[in-house]
């Protein structure tokens, strides 16, 4: 469960947002509406001027980035010198988790990761899959996906599979999109309007 009611200020930009939901949440809005700002505030990368952020039932408003157990994935996120398997296991190893090998192979297969070598040698879309798999296997409280689903060729199927795995692991996923129609891929759609203040939320039909 992600629950927040915040006001975030970045220079002249002011964002007020209220959100409550679990499972997969789509954060939709045009350029400059504050999607990235909100995701960065949830991740602890931007300070909250007012309000609270709760993730998985815990109030993480004042927690540091490394303490709040919330992973932000962007299109350029990757550790280029690592091999694919080392990359995918990086977060899990850091936390002392030991996912079953069968589970690792299943996740890789279902997310379309069927290549080896170093991550830096992969295409951008492939790197995004690896980064998303890495976040998933580290079993955080929540994964925030800042437009990192956009470059994938089988996007709808990927999001559906990813959401399924995240739910099984008890991980909430919030992804941003410029297209409100992407709400159909999520359990909740949250729309940021016109940059500054208002947000509305509804349970999607899925």
């Amino acid at each position, binding site marked *: 469960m992600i629950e927040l009611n915040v006001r975030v200020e970045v220079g002249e930009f002011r964002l007020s947002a209220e959100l409550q939901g679990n499972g997969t949440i789509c954060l939709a809005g045009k350029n400059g509406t504050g999607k990235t700002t909100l995701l960065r505030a949830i991740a602890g990368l931007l300070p909250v001027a007012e309000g609270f952020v709760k993730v998985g039932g815990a109030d993480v408003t004042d927690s540091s*980035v490394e303490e709040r157990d919330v992973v932000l*994935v962007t299109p350029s*996120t990757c550790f280029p*010198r690592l091999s694919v398997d080392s990359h995918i296991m990086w977060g899990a190893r*850091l*936390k002392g988790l030991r996912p079953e090998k069968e589970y690792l192979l299943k996740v890789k297969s279902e997310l379309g990761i069927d290549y080896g070598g170093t991550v830096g040698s992969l295409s951008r879309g492939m790197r995004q899959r690896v980064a998303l798999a890495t976040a998933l296997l580290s079993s955080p409280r929540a994964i925030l996906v800042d437009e990192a689903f956009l470059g994938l060729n089988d996007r709808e199927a990927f999001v559906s599979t990813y959401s399924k795995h995240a739910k099984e692991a008890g991980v909430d996923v919030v992804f941003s999109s410029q297209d409100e129609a992407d709400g159909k891929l999520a359990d909740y759609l949250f729309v940021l309007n016109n940059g500054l203040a208002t947000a509305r939320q509804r349970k999607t039909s899925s």
Partner: protein
Amino acid sequence: MNWLRLISIASLLLLLVPVFVLLYYGLGPFRDAAGFSTQVFRSIELTLFSSALAVVADFILFTPLAYYLARGNDRITESLVDIPVSVPHPIIGVALLILDSPVTPTGQFLLSLHINFYNTILGLVTALVIMSAPIYVKSMQPYFESKDPSSEEFAMGMGASRLKTLYSIVLPNSYDGLSSASLIAMSRALSEFGSISIIAFYVLQFPFYGVSPASVTIYEFFSGNMSGGLNAAVSASAAMILVAIPITLAGHMIRKRNGR
């Protein structure tokens, strides 16, 4: 006519006049065997050795500081870093001398641990670290700032500390920046005179027993304390320049190649 280019080249030539003069006279009309003697090459060896050690220390001790400055917003710390190079350099030599003097409590403590700066390789390297570290930090900081932080944020989101992120994620992808900053810092260490002429005029330790750093040797020729006089000083300077130029150029070329 590109006047900006013309003016820039003219001003650069003005800066390089001393270097050209020393190379021309040192290798030509003023060439003196004493300037290319074993003693001079031993002093260049000592300078290269101690500068290389100083850069290793810069890397180990000051890379975290450069990263902290790049990712934090600590203007006070940033300005404090410049202090050692903004004071007359002999002051650093005097400070190390006082710090390690048997008449001060710090000196008594250090000497009880058998730590002696005066005329030792440790003292020489310590002075070179203090004089080269600000250059190293100021070279690494913009390099770190130029890197996309998203992968670092990703690692921290999975629970990695800033320090863990630096060593596991940032440094393995920073070989070019580290090489460039190290070479630039090393060229700064090679050129140091003021501080080391006080704390380590010569070294009284194996394998450099009785050897002075190159800059001090050149000064000794010039001041007449060593036989050879001005001609030997000019020749030794030319030899030192020939060693230092490739290191400086390599550092800047690596940095240029990476678009900074």
